[in-house]
């Protein structure tokens, strides 16, 4: 079946008010869930699986995939407005989105995030439709050594997150990597650093740590400088970025969309790593790298373009091979099975209506997301004018319920509070917290693939596997280059 035939089939499934309504509901639920810290894409989709049980298989999957794609955008809203990433990948969006809000340009931040998400999402889906099968086959060929190299490439992006103090960023990422080792070792089955507590067998989960480090800590920071006086209302500009500004970042959006899709394809990599890598690349390619971290539109676009496009990428292995590529994919796989369907090559043959229906619904979901986002931004932005004395208590309440919702465990709530305190102390002494998240996200991927690679072929594999060697070399250079530049800069200033 060629491209247009499949699109025709796909859109014919969507005819009628019911599928369209389902997509609209899915997009709205996705945006809201994404904006809610704690309801990450995988949790949001998982919590709605039971609902979809009673629907027809096509409608159920359309609903869930619409939620999936929209929630990746939704995370950016709270990240930009209140520095509280709603989804893990939006932690990267917050790096530049929140400074924009502080400058009174929340509208620009939200607008950039929305457009980058839409374009990224569309590119991801287009690549999914066109090349799902061949791409999935290529991704399978990557060996543990290659995955290790890719993960290290992700780790190397820490060098650009130092904001002047690389040692502190390194200490933060190593702290993240170290605490990620807590729990059962996935390779040997031995429990590590659990101190005999079975609460720690699964280690610290990402979401509570993320909410604590980003959201709860902000409240503590604000409390330290609390004067009790009501805040003078900042002027909030809800103006969108101008066309000229969009033209300036169009290359960033395109590049990050491709990066996001490609990284999304690798099972286990995912949106957060995609966002970190794309942010790092955008900074390196930028004409104004010094703007990054201070409210760069490119930074927001790089993060959002990458995390939204990674959805299309992550669906590649799921639909083409039946292999879940992300945590959300794993939930979707279960949803397929609930309806007695098995994703994979046979699904294309036996139920093309479902496969192409999903594809086309994703395209439509992106368009609907753009419309709802453009309209909704006006309302979202009002959050900024909520008095701080009401906003901060609510952030804490959201943080608590959000960490609890991840797996219904009070331990996660305690972890969230603990990470809130750690985040406050880190911020107080100028240690960045984003690298901790990066360490937690990549810790398992680095370790597992390193050990797998060595168990399979010994230490020499990192030199004999050409691809791994090249990627390792690139990660080394991308790590050293910013350090060298800042050292030279420092020298020049002194001399």
């Amino acid at each position: 079946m060629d491209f247009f035939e499949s699109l025709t089939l796909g859109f014919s499934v969507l005819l009628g008010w019911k599928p369209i309504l389902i997509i609209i509901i899915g997009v709205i639920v996705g945006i809201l869930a994404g904006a809610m810290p704690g309801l990450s894409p995988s949790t949001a989709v998982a919590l709605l699986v039971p609902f979809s049980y009673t629907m027809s298989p096509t409608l159920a999957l359309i609903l869930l995939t619409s939620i999936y794609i929209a929630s990746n955008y939704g995370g950016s809203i709270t990240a930009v407005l209140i520095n509280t990433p709603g989804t893990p990948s939006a932690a990267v969006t917050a790096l530049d989105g929140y400074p924009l809000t502080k400058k009174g340009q929340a509208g620009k931040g939200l607008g950039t995030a929305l457009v980058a998400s839409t374009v990224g999402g569309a590119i991801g889906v287009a690549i999914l439709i066109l090349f799902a099968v061949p791409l999935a086959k290529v991704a399978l060929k990557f060996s543990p050594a290659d995955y290790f190299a890719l993960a290290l490439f992700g780790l190397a992006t820490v060098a650009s997150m130092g904001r002047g103090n690389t040692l502190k960023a390194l200490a933060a990422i190593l702290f993240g990597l170290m605490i990620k080792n807590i729990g059962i070792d996935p390779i040997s089955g031995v429990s590590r650093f659990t101190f005999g507590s079975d609460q720690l067998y699964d280690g610290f989960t990402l979401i509570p740590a993320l909410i604590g480090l980003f959201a709860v800590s902000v409240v503590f920071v604000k409390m330290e400088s609390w004067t009790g006086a009501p805040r003078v209302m900042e002027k909030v500009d809800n103006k969108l970025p101008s066309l000229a500004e969009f033209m300036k970042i169009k290359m960033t959006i395109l590049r990050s969309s491709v990066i996001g899709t490609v990284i999304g394809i690798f099972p286990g990599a995912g949106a957060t790593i995609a966002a970190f890598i794309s942010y790092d690349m955008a900074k390196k390619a930028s004409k104004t790298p010094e703007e990054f971290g201070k409210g760069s539109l490119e930074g927001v676009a790089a993060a959002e373009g990458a995390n939204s496009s990674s959805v299309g990428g992550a669906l590649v292995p799921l639909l083409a091979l039946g292999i879940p590529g992300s945590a959300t994919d794993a939930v979707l796989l279960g949803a397929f099975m609930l309806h007695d369907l098995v994703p994979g090559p046979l699904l294309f043959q036996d139920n093309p209506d479902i496969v192409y229906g999903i594809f086309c619904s994703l395209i439509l979901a992106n368009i609907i997301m753009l419309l709802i986002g453009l309209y909704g931004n006006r309302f979202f932005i009002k959050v900024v004018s909520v008095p701080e004395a009401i906003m901060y208590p609510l952030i804490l309440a959201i943080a608590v319920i959000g960490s609890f919702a991840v797996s219904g465990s009070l331990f996660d709530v305690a972890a969230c509070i603990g990470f809130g305190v750690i985040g406050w102390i880190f911020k107080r002494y100028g240690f960045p917290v984003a690298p901790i998240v990066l360490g937690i996200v990549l810790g398992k991927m680095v370790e597992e693939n390193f050990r797998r690679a060595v168990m399979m072929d010994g230490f020499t594999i990192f030199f004999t596997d050409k691809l791994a060697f090249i990627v390792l070399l690139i990660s080394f250079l991308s790590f050293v280059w910013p350090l060298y530049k800042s050292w030279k800069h420092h020298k020049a200033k002194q001399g």
Partner: protein
Amino acid sequence: MKKNILALLVAAAMLTGLISTAQAAFPEKPIKLIVYTKPGGAIDVFARKFTAVAAKHTDATFVVVNKSGAGGIVAIKYILNQKADGYKIAAVTRSNIGKIVSIGGKIDTNEINWMGLMVVDPEAVITNRKAKVNTWDQLVADAKAKKGKQIWVGPAAGGNDHIMAMKTWKAAGIEAKWIPYAGGGKSMAALMGGHGIAYVGNPQDVIGRPDLKVAAIASPKRLGGEFANVPTFEELGVKGLNNEIMWRGFMSKKGIPAEAEAFYLDLLNKVNNDPEWKAYIEKGGASPVMMGAEEFAAVVEKDKKEFTRALKSLGVLK
């Protein structure tokens, strides 16, 4: 004649009515069915299917509650910390036993009422259809040629599948390396990508994945349906692997009221005989069964011994 049949039907209806009123004491409120994964996990799908089929045979309402964490320990501890009123039951699998053993005696399996073992799923060695080595004989020859360097992929060391792999190597007189991946999905991806020669799982793993095939199955006789061509280990001349299973069932805390016990026994038997349930289970190459508390507890004891032995030899347990 017609009248007679009608009378018979009425009598039957009354009889079933009587039986059900006799048991009406349980349940009086919705029953929580605890699942140890998040929604969408394999056991979650199983539990939800169960409640859908059970709804045909009882008016009782089941609510699926996901309590994920630590490979099922969180869910089992939750059950054991509640009152034994019969309103909280959990879906369990054999891998939970491995987890219970690996955390070292923190959960007493004697406190658990092993209500019913409902599905047995034969263990299978799965290969990549497109690889040069894909039949059992080729696999054995390749393993001998590689002298212990043949790669098998699967979930973490010390789990169900790893232990099955070690048993298989011993029985077949070969040596190989176990490279663990995070879960079945990623292991199968590695197998499809040619990074390993074999994966240990269950027949349902190959459904919908035409690149994979079952090379040998650890059941006493061949399976039906699409697995009719798959040889058993016995046929391949490998002894001692004709009944290796992965099971699924239900548990509660010990000491639930007698009427609750009777209710579940009756319901599990009815579901076991339901054609929709049978079709659902058999589609995945597994078989529906119904083992009551005593038989089930004996299976658990046997599994505990096996896991303890294996985990000690791997150094996970001291």
